[in-house]
């Protein structure tokens, strides 16, 4: 069963409401310049464009693959990302984090661009593997010494919102012209990934 367009429209209508409710006053910043509140956590992944394109790609690919990938991939990603984040918080080294993030954009964008339809478990493993790199990068930058529940809430909600953005755009793939647009978006994400890998951006 496919997600209906009006359901996506309702979700899209609610996102600004949640964002509006999430606004807080500007508080003190931590030593590394990160605000330790919901908004600080929310903006953390959004201010990393390499993270943004990869997370949008997860949503795009999920929407492109249809049920059950459309919800399974956005469920797998934050869970595995949290484990990666725990590794980062604990200071456990993970080689090539930035390279892994760039490759995630290349691969996930490429999957959409080439309309790849691997078995669901392969898609989930692929997304989960890349989520570790994203989580580690964010976890390593989490402000130590803070009670970071609100920060983490913002962080996870932002990640989910980026997935939702990808899913919403990926919903266009129900139409022939939209399918071309979605595949083109995947191609652009993949190219941006190459640019990040080559440190052009």
């Amino acid at each position: 069963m496919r997600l209906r367009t009006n359901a996506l429209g309702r979700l899209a209508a609610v996102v600004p409401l949640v964002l509006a409710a999430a606004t807080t006053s500007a508080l003190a910043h931590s030593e590394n310049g990160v605000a330790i509140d919901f908004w600080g956590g929310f903006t953390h992944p959004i201010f990393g464009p390499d993270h943004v394109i990869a997370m949008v790609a997860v949503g795009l690919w999920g929407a492109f693959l249809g049920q059950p990938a459309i919800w399974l991939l956005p469920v797998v990603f934050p869970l595995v990302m949290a484990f990666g984040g725990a590794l980062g918080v604990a200071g456990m080294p993970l080689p090539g984090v930035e390279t892994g993030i760039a490759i995630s954009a290349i691969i996930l964008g490429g999957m959409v661009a080439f309309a790849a339809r691997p078995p669901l478990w392969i898609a989930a493993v692929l997304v989960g593997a890349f989520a570790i790199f994203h989580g580690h990068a964010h976890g390593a930058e989490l402000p130590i010494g803070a009670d970071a529940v609100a920060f983490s809430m913002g962080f996870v909600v932002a990640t989910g919102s980026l997935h939702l953005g990808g899913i919403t755009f990926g919903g266009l793939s129900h139409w022939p012209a939209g399918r071309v647009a979605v595949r083109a978006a995947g191609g652009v994400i993949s190219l941006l990934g190459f640019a990040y890998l080559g440190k052009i951006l």
Partner: protein
Amino acid sequence: MTWFFCAALVTCLFASTTPALAHAPLMGIGGVFGGVIHALLVPEHGLTLLALGLVLGRQKQDARRLGVLIFVAILTCGLVAAALIGEETLAADLLLLATCTLGLLIAATWMPPRLVLCLAALAALMLALDSKPDGTSAVESTRMLIGSGLGATIALALLAEGAVYLRGHVLLIAARVAGSWIAAIGIMVLSLRIVTRMTIG
């Protein structure tokens, strides 16, 4: 449609939560009302109640009501213990652990009734022990603990009964996504707290 916006409203309320600051969510508000506010606005407590409400809402009527009853009974005992125990406990960490487990169960849609009842009891006890206000008189502290108990009980009953109406494909997927977000937040914060404790002491 109505339940969709109810779910959106709950999301907005949780998004508007702020970090726990020395157990004084709103300056100048104490007594029973202050305790109710505490139970609803402290992010850890709100997340726990949301997760437990979602899990209990997926149980059969008897198991659901038994779960709420066990929660209220253990919560009451815990609040009495909190009033008597003066020293700091690991309640906040164990509460996050219970929340994290509940989130994983929601994401996996695997909720064996006995495990759910055990988690309800653990969450109730830790929520009660973590509700003790700092630096107030014994009378004021007792009033706030009573308020916390009332707030948590009412919130859980409403969430558990409301979650029963989470039917339909889209809402069930939204619940699974919410579960994965709750678990991810729990994992991140728990790891950060453990590392902070090891680093700072």
